[in-house]
Every structure is written in structure tokens, then in C-alpha cells.
């Protein structure tokens, strides 16, 4: 009901006007950054993902929405390799990765964030960023030297933290920080991997409405070449940021289109408002 009221309160036109034409041109030409074909996941008799075909174009700002239990997080888990699909295939930058491990998919340029903060809480903010940096810069097996003395690690960590406004907190332990700041670190860890494709699972989850602006600012400042798929319940965020929206209901794709098309779609309204209102 809350979601439905938020959808009703949306402005008539998307803020990113003109994006639909750009999107149509892009989808016709460039190869996909990420694609799933006939993706299925079944737990016993329950089918949580049903034959999902999804194409994330290069540089996309693609939202995946749907009511609770629609299978959005399962979809992200399937794509990142945390869960093995029952059927179907996954392609990252044109290469099939269905049987590739989660860790190797990250090396291949796929990063994600979590709906519930998944951080290194006993370590400092800078260490949380240094961990993915060390890995990406190929230092993960180095048994000597110090990350604090490695120019690449320190410079990148400082630049990223400054960009997010977290530099003054660099020495603080993550478990001492406020929730919103932890949400930012959740995204910063993924950004430190310099991903080609970034999956954001409810980046603004748990942040009060008034404060979700800082997350939106962060998302809007992300480099254009990163292809982004994000799951979000905050429809203001979705309609401001997304150029394409896929609606997932009961594990399968209900519809897909530009924000304007989705807003106008009667079926989407029915799903969010409940069929008795439709």
C-alpha cells in the first residue's frame, strides 16, 4: 500500500526526459553488458525464478522492480553466482558465465551490493575499501609489505573515500558508523572493484526518505560506462534514476520499458495496488 501510494505521487513525466530515445538507439546497436536467457530457479516445488530473459545494455541505468517476494534478490544471487540456476544461461559481456564461480565473475567485471549491509565491521573504513583494492591490484597473495605503504592502494582508497565524502571517517571502525554511512561503504566496496556491471540490491534500503538523497547523488555521479542494474522499492529513486525498468512478478518478467511506459502500464498498477483495485 505504501509502494502504491508512492507510485501515485510520482510526477507525470520522468526527470530523465529524452532517455528513452537514447536507450532505444543503444539497444539496437551495442552488445549486452549482461544477459540472461531462460533463467529458472526452483526450490523443490516452488519456482522462484521463471524463464527470465533480461538484457542489461552497456552503460544502462536499469531498474528491477516488483512486489515483495517477486524474486528480485534471487535474480541477483543467480546472476552473481551465489545461487546456481535450475535452467537457463547467463552472459557477461557476451561470454557465458553460467558455470563460472562467483569469485571469477567478479574478476570478469561484475560487482554487487547487498540489501542488508555486508561489511567488514571490525575493520576501519579505509581497510574495507583496501580489501577489494588489494584484490583488484593483484596484491592479494603478497606476504610482505603493507597496504598503507602501497601508493596504488592508498591513492585509490583516498580518492574513492573523498568522492563519497567519507575521507574524514577513514580511520573509524565500520561498526562505529551511522547506518547511512554504512550504506555508502556498501556501495564503495563494489566501486573499488571498478566493475563493468554493477548490481545494486536496494541501495537506499533502511535509509529514511529524507536522507536517501545522498545515495541518489552518489548513483548519479557514477561513471557512465558502468552498466547498472538496481533493485529498489523507493519509486522516487527508481523513476528519477532509471532509463529502463523491468517489472518482476512471481518470478517472471511482467513487462519491461521506459519509466513513462511502466508508469502508464495498467498491469503494473494492478500489481502494486492489488487486483481488486484494478
Amino acid at each position, binding site marked *: 500500500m505504501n509502494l502504491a501510494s508512492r507510485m501515485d505521487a510520482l510526477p507525470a513525466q520522468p526527470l530523465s526526459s529524452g532517455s528513452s530515445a537514447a536507450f532505444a538507439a543503444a539497444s539496437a546497436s551495442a552488445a549486452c553488458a549482461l544477459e540472461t536467457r531462460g533463467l529458472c530457479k526452483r526450490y523443490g516445488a516452488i519456482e522462484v525464478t521463471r524463464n527470465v530473459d533480461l538484457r542489461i545494455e552497456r552503460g544502462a541505468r536499469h531498474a528491477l522492480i516488483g512486489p515483495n517476494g517477486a524474486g528480485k534478490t534471487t535474480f541477483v544471487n543467480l546472476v552473481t553466482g551465489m545461487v546456481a540456476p535450475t535452467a537457463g544461461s547467463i552472459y557477461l559481456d557476451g561470454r557465458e558465465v553460467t558455470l563460472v564461480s562467483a*569469485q571469477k565473475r*567478479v574478476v570478469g567485471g561484475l560487482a554487487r551490493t547487498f540489501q542488508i549491509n*555486508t561489511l567488514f565491521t571490525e575493520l576501519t573504513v579505509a581497510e574495507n575499501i583496501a580489501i577489494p583494492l588489494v584484490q583488484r591490484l593483484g596484491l592479494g597473495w603478497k606476504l610482505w609489505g603493507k*597496504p598503507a605503504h602501497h601508493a596504488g592502494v*592508498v591513492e585509490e582508497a583516498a580518492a574513492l573515500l573523498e568522492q563519497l565524502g567519507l575521507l574524514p571517517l577513514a*580511520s573509524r571502525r565500520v561498526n562505529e558508523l551511522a547506518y547511512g554511512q554504512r550504506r555508502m561503504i556498501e556501495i564503495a566496496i563494489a566501486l573499488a572493484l571498478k566493475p563493468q556491471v554493477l548490481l545494486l540490491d536496494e541501495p537506499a534500503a533502511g535509509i529514511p526518505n529524507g536522507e536517501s538523497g545522498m545515495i541518489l547523488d552518489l548513483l548519479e555521479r557514477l561513471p557512465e560506462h558502468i552498466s547498472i542494474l538496481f533493485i529498489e522499492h523507493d519509486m522516487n529513486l527508481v523513476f528519477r534514476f532509471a532509463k529502463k525498468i523491468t517489472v518482476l512478478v512471481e518470478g517472471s518478467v511482467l513487462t519491461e520499458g521506459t519509466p513513462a511506459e511502466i508508469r502508464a502500464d495498467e498491469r503494473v498498477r494492478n500489481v502494486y495496488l492489488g487486483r481488486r483495485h484494478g
Partner: protein
Amino acid sequence: MNTIVRQLLPAGALPFYRLRLADVLPWVVAIAAFFLFDTYMSIGAQILIMVIFGISLDLALGFAGINTLGHAAFFGVGAYAAGYFSLHVSPEPLSGLLVAGGLAALIGLLSGWLLLRTSGLALLMLTMVTTVVLHEFANSWRSVTGGADGLSGMETAPLLGLFSFDLYGKTAYLYALGVLFVVFFAVRIIANSPFGLSIRGIRENAKRMLLVGTPVHAKLILAYTLSAAIAGVAGGLSAQITRTVSLDLLSFQLSGNILIMLIVGGVGRLYGAFIGIPLYMLLLDRAAAIDPFHWMFFVGIALILLVRFAPGGLLALTAQLYARVRGRLAVNFAKEPQ
């Protein structure tokens, strides 16, 4: 370049163990003990060996978060390897230590590859079972291990061909101290390294580590193998210094004891083994001397009090007390001008 790099991040953002004046303290105490308590060199060497063993456990448990109740497996394997090497190949001690560390590392590598896909209670059980299997293996393979009789009658040649092992255990003490010094600084370098940061990340959150592209299983295997090698060196030292190897070295009890001793000092703090192990071993020694019948009762009481008032170990308690005193001093200074 380092100065520029340091200025980019606030101090302590990427912390590491720095050399401080206090770092000299354990070594000064150890050397002072050599001169002051020269009749206690035997228990002194035992303590130093257990500190090495404790450091090896700290690398696996404290830094990489590998829950293990079977670390005696590597200590025992190292002891048998050094004992066998001394009896049948060469009594030269340093090459014996290398063999002990090498064989323990090999067992660590193989068992780590098999076991480290599990975690938590399952891993605890499996590491324990590994020790039980090795214990039975050593019990049955009499021709090599001596079975229930163990190995004895080993000779240990003079260290570097110069310092022979004397009856009072002075050479043994200094030998163990030298090995401890090398092991401690090696572990300190590893703990400070990018690999050290990675394994602390795994300890904190293995799932996230996988999703930042870290080969978690492989890194845990390396940490476990390094830890096993150090435990093997400790076992090898024990065999060379006591000149006996018994099945007890592969016992569950030893795994449990070293865990308790490390927890007493503090896990994942590098110096935990230096505090917990000497205190616990001296407490056992003194309690047994004072009351040979009820000594375990007093040790039990001491442990209950410790867990109640210092669950993070003595190092954590000291750090808390220090912070509290410093906080109070700061408050007093702040009030003074008024």
C-alpha cells in the same frame, strides 16, 4: 613517496603493527629470565615452544578465523618428523626443524584443502577428527612412530656445530628463543601484509570476500598451511629439546590446552600467545606445587573469572583499562582550567 602516501589518508586508516619500545619487552623478559632463573631453563624452553605453537594457532584462528580444535595434529606431526629425522637421517637440529615444518605444512595443505570448505562447528569437528585419525595412525605404525612407546633416544647434534645441548637446558632455551624470534617476526610481516588484510577480511565476512573476487578457499589453505608449518616447527623443537616424542603430542587435550592458553592472552592480537601461555603454564606449575590434589580446581576458578571479566583475553582487558584510565585523565585535564 611514503610521506606523500601517508598524507592522503588520516592516521590509523590502514593500521599495522608498528615497532614500538614495548616490543622490546618480551625479549628483555626472556633474556632476563635466562640469567635470573637459570635453574628453570627446562620449563622456560617448554613455555617458548608453546608460545611458538600459540602464534601458529593465532595465525589460523585469530587472523584467518579458522575455527580449529585439532592444531595438535601439526605439532605432533612435526615432533614425529623431527624425532624420526634425528634417529634415522641426521641429528643436525636446524635441518630437523625444516623437515618438521615441511611435513606439517604438507599435512596442513592436504587437510586444509579437504576441510576448509566447511566452517563453524563442522570445521571444529573435522579438525578434531583429523587429530584423532593421526593419533590412531601413529599408534598403529609402530615401525616408524614407536606406537604407544613413542620415540626416544634421539641425539641432537650441537647447534650450528658449535653449541652442544647441555644438561641444564641453557642451549635449548636460547635455541627455542631464537626460533621464536624468527617465527614471531615472520608472522608479524604476514599479518601486516596485503595477504594479512585479506585473511582478516575473510575472518570478518567470507561471503563478501568471495564477492570482491577473493579466492577465499585458496587463501584459507595458505593461511592454514603456514600455520601448520609453524606448529610443526614447534613440535620439532619439542622433540629435539626433550628428546622424546609420545602419542600425547597428537592428543585432543593438547589442541584444547593451546586454544585455552591463547584465549587467555587474546586471540588475533599477535601478542596474545606471549601473555596467555607463560601465565597459564606458570599458573599450572605453581598450582600443582601448592596443592597437588586440588590444583585443577583453582585453575578452573581462575579461568571462570577470566571468562567473566575478560572475555576478550588479558590483552583486551589491558587495552580497555588503559583506554578507561586515559579517558579519565583526559576528563580531569579538561576540567582543570575551570
